């Protein structure tokens, strides 16, 4: 295993969508060697094609990645960027069999109106009562909410159905949602807030009941949900990073360490796979993460944290507690001069002290690093 103080001048980009391609391009433009691993379709029970990660050994600056489905079974890289992207899923609203109420995504709806624009259809569209249903069964991400309202604008430019937008938690701080809601309201779209909602499908249409109103609609427009790709759980388990409660890959607290850094120093998440933002913001996120990675790889050495844990190897009883406790993957069993003991890799340590608290023989202490480092440097 290479000494993590010297950086392996290569970055691994995991994923195969827009974000991954952007990351690869930036790395190459920055003069870094890149290893691409799609890790597509891996969910533990086969169905994966192309290269995927089996496991990641080592620490920042000197990861040793075990691969499957690739030419090389082991690759050494200095940093890993996970850019799996996200995927669209139909929201869980389905009319019962035999109901004639169309249920469409906003994009499909706008497209249909555009295509159906012959005289008689224009009239027919004017007589429709369209229910745009947001935040059901769970909150619609801003990206697809904005998409829905843009579709509303496209439709009302071409035809004049009655449009009711039902929402529970529509936040308008980004994605131009403030402008979209204002303009559509001004154009006659009715916004209905609800806490509880019931949909009853019949041959006449769909009856939408909330605390405040009851309406009959004949077309239901439901934006897609955005979910993390199927391979997220598998990848997280194999790389030692975390999945949040929402199913997306998790940064550490962004306020303190900086966007993109996961619990495992040197492994970053970029773009859609951890961020629900508009396309511009997501691209900027990839740029920012790659900026840090390139700076790290160019730096030639991994900076030390402010303080890190150190094992007194003579006292170590090799119970493996610290290795199992460490949430950052910074501890390994190492043999040095014929003594095998737990060893904390300083560059990968976060100084949290959990290993110190758990060691049954009190063989670990926190020591200040020789040089102080900016927290944002890695």
């Amino acid at each position, binding site marked *: 295993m290479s000494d993590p103080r010297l950086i392996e001048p290569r970055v691994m980009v995991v994923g195969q969508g827009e974000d991954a391609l952007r990351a690869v391009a930036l790395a190459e433009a920055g003069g870094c060697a890149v290893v691409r691993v799609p890790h597509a379709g891996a969910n533990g029970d086969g169905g994966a094609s192309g290269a995927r990660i089996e496991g990641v050994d080592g620490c920042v600056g000197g990861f040793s990645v075990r691969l499957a489905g690739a030419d090389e079974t082991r690759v050494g890289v200095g940093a890993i960027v996970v850019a799996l992207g996200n995927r669209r899923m139909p929201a869980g609203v389905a009319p019962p069999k035999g109901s004639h109420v169309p249920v469409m995504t906003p994009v499909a709806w706008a497209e249909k109106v555009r295509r159906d624009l012959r005289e008689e259809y224009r009239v027919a569209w004017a007589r429709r009562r369209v229910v745009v249903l947001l935040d059901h069964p769970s909150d619609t991400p801003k990206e697809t909410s904005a998409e829905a309202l843009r579709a509303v604008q496209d439709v009302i430019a071409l035809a004049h159905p009655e449009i009711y937008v039902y929402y529970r938690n529509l936040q308008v701080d980004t994605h131009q949602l403030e402008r979209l809601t204002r303009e559509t309201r001004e154009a006659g779209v009715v916004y209905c807030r609800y806490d509880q909602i019931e949909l009853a499908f019949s041959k006449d249409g769909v009856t939408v009941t909330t605390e405040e109103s009851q309406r009959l609609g004949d077309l239901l427009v439901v934006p897609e949900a955005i979910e993390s790709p199927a391979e997220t759980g598998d990848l997280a388990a194999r790389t030692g990073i*975390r999945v949040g*409660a929402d199913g997306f890959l998790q940064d*550490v*607290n962004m306020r*303190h*360490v900086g966007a993109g850094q996961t*619990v495992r120093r040197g492994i970053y998440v970029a773009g859609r796979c951890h961020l629900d933002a508009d396309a511009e913001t997501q691209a900027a996120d990839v740029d920012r993460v790659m900026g840090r990675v390139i700076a790290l790889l160019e730096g030639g050495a991994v900076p030390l944290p402010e*303080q890190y844990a150190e094992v007194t190897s003579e006292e170590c009883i090799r119970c493996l507690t610290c290795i199992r406790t460490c*949430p*950052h993957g910074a501890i390994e069993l190492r043999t040095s001069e014929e003594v095998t003991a737990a060893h904390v890799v300083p560059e990968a340590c*976060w*100084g*949290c*002290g*959990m290993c*110190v*608290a*758990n060691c049954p023989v009190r063989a670990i202490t*926190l020591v200040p690093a020789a040089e102080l480092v900016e927290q944002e440097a890695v």
Partner: protein
Amino acid sequence: MSDARDTSPLVLIGCQRSAGAALARLADEGRALPSHVRWQSVPCGGTIDELMILEAFESGAERVMVVSCAAGACNSVVGDERARRRTAATRELLEAIGIEGWRLRYETMAPNMGADLLRWVDAFVAPVEESVGEA
């Protein structure tokens, strides 16, 4: 609730990112913990263990408050959960040796909650009724 303020020795053990950061901000505003409170900083909630809490009581504390980041905010992911559980285990130990469980309290906070921290310290008194417990 008694009107007299409890000024018996209190040790506040807190992680540097939550309570530590909050105290720094309070200091900028010219505010501080009362003099009967001793502040003990740890890097993370996960650093806190039974020994640290017991040693605080041994050193003369009559009350100990343990503070960490809120669930989901810990940079090391599980530090708050560890702090919560270690505190609960220590409370059981304390009760077994005759020290009332209410004397050990666990709270979570963000760095902008300095005013809350000062309030909690002031409100850290013996419960009026026996049934008031601490999670």
